[in-house]
């Protein structure tokens, strides 16, 4: 069965640079969620989209922005990167009933 696809899988950036993470949900899933998992921590909710509109917002820094496109894929844009942004970024998708989220493999971001 098709799963959530995230790209890139690994990313290394310098401080103050910009990064763009992409997420392709499971086909026919219309809701996308982004989570950030710091080293040794539990995943923290950042933001979600339903039918291309932002549906909920968590502890996402103002330096980050995201959107969902007409084909339902989503991009997380991160600017002015800081060392503390180094983390594993997960995307998850669900169908309209949104009761169950399926996670992608994650993008591991390292900021030097």
């Amino acid at each position, binding site marked *: 069965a098709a799963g959530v696809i995230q790209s890139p899988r690994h990313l290394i950036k310098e401080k103050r640079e910009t990064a763009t993470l992409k997420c392709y949900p499971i086909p026919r899933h219309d809701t996308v*969620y982004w989570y950030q998992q710091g080293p040794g921590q*539990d995943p923290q*909710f950042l933001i979600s989209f339903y039918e291309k509109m932002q549906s*909920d917002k*968590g502890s996402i820094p103002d330096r980050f922005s995201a959107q969902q496109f007409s084909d339902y894929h989503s991009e997380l844009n991160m600017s002015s990167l800081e060392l503390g942004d180094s983390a594993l970024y997960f995307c998850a998708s669900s169908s309209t009933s949104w*009761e169950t989220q399926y996670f992608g*493999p994650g993008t591991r971001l390292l900021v030097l």
Partner: protein
Amino acid sequence: AQSVTQLDSQVPVFEEAPVELRCNYSSSVSVYLFWYVQYPNQGLQLLLKYLSGSTLVKGINGFEAEFNKSQTSFHLRKPSVHISDTAEYFCAVTPRANAGGTSYGKLTFGQGTILTVHP
């Protein structure tokens, strides 16, 4: 708002022994409950979920969990573990569809329990 507490940060156990990973939650509204597993350097895989109905739910890889509303708990169990079960396990909740509020779908995770199975 919801919060999840996993009572054990690490659980070492010998192969073929039973195991229980404990999870308690707090919420002002009704919730759905989930257990996810994360193998080293991998993503989160859904183990099982409680939406409604029977309070004992069975998941993949021989795991099961029991929802106890009065104790607000959702403990995960396996009668006999294997080396391959070594991983980190996360308990998570999300508000029910008709529970009100605006946090539909957002998962709140516990701090994780690292299960290490020794030969």
